[in-house]
């Protein structure tokens, strides 16, 4: 076993690197055989390995002088310590997790262990539960080669994958829509406290959408632009407006492949149509539409979200802040802002500084109000307002377990339904704010642009009221926060380089920067938290590759100290020199997950300068620890745009050799990029460096 070369095998073979086997379609096969890619189910779960023997929790008796133990620290057994270390590389999270395990507080890691062994039909995508003729599965062992309707493994896997991609695209796009609707409300004077912050960007977008330049009233521009952008979501257009931003050579590939995105909602509806029983059975045709839908996200819904969030709240500039579970403060009212949409969190930030609320907090005995972010909401307010961020996906339950979180305020996406269960062990109030995202056991207050600030004040008051309900015996702040730098929007990067991308492009041409890698995506309890993100980033910067990061990946790098100028010491000599000269970190925090569109724009800008397609650039994507459908959408739009993307966890598609082949090999015929699966970050780094050198050779640099 090990890495097998891609050359020298015929088109029927599937090859996956590392821990997998080569499967050959037998020459004399007379009936359809199902090609199963081996997926080593134990590789990605060190917790399963360590839990294979159920270890008993025992208090180890201390002989001799008894140790003085504070009440909230029962003696840790080494098995709990080992388990926590196996589950996460985030040292503060380890301590929090030990505390949870000792106190019987269930986390996502525990629930994953309870789910194992996971169903291999599901894991390989060969389970179809869509219609009432089913549920169907593929298992030739029992002559189950087709579902009741006749769908074979390829079709079932393709439909399941399309569903995942478009669910992710829908999440990003709905978020984008809400931002545009708020812009419209600003234009109508109905958005309490919201305003145009980056007027220049609004003007520039108005120009891009062909709005009459004679309109001078900002509110009217807002209304007109808002109306024009909402058209992007409909069925009237032949192509999205932002398709004009795509380098011509990349656009030509999309035209050839038939994947130019037409309308944000329209592509998603067509995708859901195709998932219905009996709508075609060609997996390539189905997944090409999946690519098109993902492009309507990346160059559509997500880009709209980013651009219009910049207009409403400001285009990010370089900002210094703090990260990890230690950002909470014992003597202040702690409120975490979790979810994805900055509409809510920006309103809360705006009112938190008001004198009445500050006074109200002081009356309760707190020194002040401490806002902290989680996940992408956290990233949005970090990028623009420098608000400290408590962690990424797998930190959300642990943050409650610090015992000092007075309110966990959420909007939507990536919010564990288990939060009220965790909060019930403490005084924390979980407060949902979107009618799209209601969790039993939490509090709800509907948040709208019309009454945004009033709602924000109510939420803050509820948190302040909760401060006195803290149980001092349960307080457990696992350590101190560390510094990070964020705010690297394309505009901020341009600014730092003196107004033009030329210094960056010259460095790439000269080879002082070999290439750029976008490390994106989530955490996944099947993998040691943050471990792959950090190893990958460290290995790449050591070879003079600049890393740009978003989402949970960026937060992981932040916790590991990589988002500081001092981290340049870990970089290779050339990259180190560039970073030191500019005072920049070797790893740049580019934003939230919708801000992956910023990476697309940077790629487009470089490609346009060099007059090449994006696929020719020495740029590679990586999602080493992803879990979500959104991540699959993002991976798809990166690949469709020409950026080969390495995934850590294998998507649930192993049951179809055709689909695996399409994603890992055949796609490159259409878009000159493909997916790779490599769970080992060291091996992933090696492969990425190879690809970068191949691209450089292709460009003759």
């Amino acid at each position: 076993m090990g890495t097998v070369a891609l050359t020298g095998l015929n088109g029927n073979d599937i090859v996956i690197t590392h821990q997998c086997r080569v499967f050959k379609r037998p020459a004399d096969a007379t009936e359809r055989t199902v090609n199963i890619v081996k997926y080593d189910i134990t590789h990605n779960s060190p917790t399963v390995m360590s839990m294979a023997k159920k270890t008993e929790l025992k208090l180890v008796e201390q002989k001799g002088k008894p140790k003085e133990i504070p009440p909230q620290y029962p003696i840790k057994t080494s098995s709990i310590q080992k388990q926590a270390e196996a589950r996460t590389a985030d040292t503060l999270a380890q301590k929090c997790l030990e505390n949870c395990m000792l106190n019987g507080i269930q986390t996502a890691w525990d629930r994953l262990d309870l789910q194992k062994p996971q169903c291999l039909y599901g894991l390989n995508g060969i389970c179809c539960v869509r219609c009432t003729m089913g549920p169907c599965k593929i298992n030739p062992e029992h002559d189950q080669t087709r579902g009741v309707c006749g769908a074979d493994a390829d079709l079932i896997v393709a439909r399941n994958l399309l569903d995942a991609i478009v669910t992710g695209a829908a999440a990003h796009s709905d978020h984008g829509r809400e931002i545009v609707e708020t812009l419209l409300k600003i234009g109508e004077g109905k958005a309490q406290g919201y305003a145009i912050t980056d007027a220049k960007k609004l003007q520039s977008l108005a120009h891009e959408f062909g709005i009459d330049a004679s309109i001078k009233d900002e509110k009217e521009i807002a209304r007109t632009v808002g109306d024009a952008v909402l058209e992007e979501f409909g069925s009237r257009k032949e192509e999205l407006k932002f398709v004009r931003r795509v380098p011509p050579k990349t656009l030509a590939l999309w035209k050839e492949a038939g994947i130019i995105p037409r309308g944000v909602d329209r592509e998603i509806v067509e995708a859901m149509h195709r998932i219905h029983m009996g709508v075609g059975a060609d997996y390539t045709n189905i997944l090409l539409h999946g690519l098109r839908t993902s492009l309507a996200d990346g160059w559509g819904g997500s880009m709209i979200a980013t651009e219009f969030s910049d207009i409403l709240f400001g285009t990010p500039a370089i900002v210094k802040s703090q990260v990890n579970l230690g950002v909470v403060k014992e003597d202040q009212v702690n409120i975490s802002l979790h979810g994805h949409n900055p509409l809510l969190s920006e309103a809360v930030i705006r009112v938190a500084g008001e004198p009445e609320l500050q006074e109200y907090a002081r009356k309760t005995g707190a020194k002040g109000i401490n806002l902290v972010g989680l996940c992408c909401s956290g990233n949005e307010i970090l990028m623009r307002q420098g608000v400290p961020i408590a962690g990424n996906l797998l930190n959300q339950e642990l943050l409650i377990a610090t015992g000092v979180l007075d309110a966990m305020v959420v909007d939507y996406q990536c919010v564990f339904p288990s939060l009220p269960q965790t909060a019930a062990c403490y005084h924390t109030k979980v407060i949902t704010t979107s009618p799209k995202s209601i969790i039993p056991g939490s509090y709800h207050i509907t948040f709208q642009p019309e009454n945004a600030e009033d709602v924000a004040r109510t939420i803050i008051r509820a948190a302040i009221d909760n401060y006195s309900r803290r149980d001092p015996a349960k307080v457990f702040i696992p350590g101190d926060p560390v510094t990070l730098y964020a705010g690297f929007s394309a505009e901020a990067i341009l600014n730092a380089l003196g107004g033009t991308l030329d210094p960056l492009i010259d460095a790439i041409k000269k080879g002082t920067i070999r290439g750029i890698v976008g490390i994106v995506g989530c955490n996944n309890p099947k993998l040691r938290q943050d471990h792959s993100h950090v190893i990958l980033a460290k290995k790449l910067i050591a070879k003079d590759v600049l890393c740009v990061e978003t989402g949970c990946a960026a937060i992981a790098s932040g916790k590991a100290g990589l988002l500081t100028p001092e981290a340049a010491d870990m970089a290779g000599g050339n990259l180190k020199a560039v970073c030191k000269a500019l005072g920049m970190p070797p790893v740049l925090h580019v934003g939230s997950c919708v801000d992956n569109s910023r990476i697309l724009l940077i790629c487009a800008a470089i490609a346009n300068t060099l007059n090449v397609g994006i696929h020719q650039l020495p740029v590679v994507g990586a999602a080493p620890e992803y879990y979500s459908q959104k991540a699959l959408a993002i991976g798809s739009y990166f690949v469709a745009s020409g950026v080969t993307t390495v995934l850590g966890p294998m998507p649930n598609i192993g049951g179809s050799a055709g689909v695996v082949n399409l994603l890992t090999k055949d796609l490159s015929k259409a878009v000159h990029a493909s997916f790779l699966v490599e769970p080992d970050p060291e091996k992933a780094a090696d492969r990425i460096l190879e690809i970068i050198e191949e691209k450089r050779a292709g460009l003759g640099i």
Partner: protein
Amino acid sequence: MKMMMIHPNRCIGCQNCELACSIAKGTDSSLGSSRIHIFTWADSGVSVPTVCQQCGDAPCVTVCPTGAMHQDPNAGYVVWDSDRCIRCKMCTQACPFGDAVYSARQDVILKCDTCQGDPQCVKNCPEHALEWVEDRQSTLSRRYSYAERFKEPLEEL
């Protein structure tokens, strides 16, 4: 020495073990490579797994003309050696359980080799119908539940 213990009363017929075996052992990507087989009776909902019993005095070993089927003293199970095998298929006739299976398409004898002592089917059984246990512990649960029947009446005395 560890051995496989099957509890058919726990088996739900989910076939996860067959998938796991095919994935672990299949050399040509066909799911028809499983060395363990589940039989389910839909009318009664009963499911029974069957697999090579790694016999000590194995008929398949006795009958094999080349020694391809042989006992591996170190491993503690019956090994099939593809290089020595002449595909005479006498082992498939000899096995009283029918768990040596010849696959013409792959040209192999499908027979469980316990995955070198780390059986994947056991790991993937959600109901613990398959257990990989020390030989003297294999019937522990059954002995225990029988003994438990005496507990209450004896307590009352």
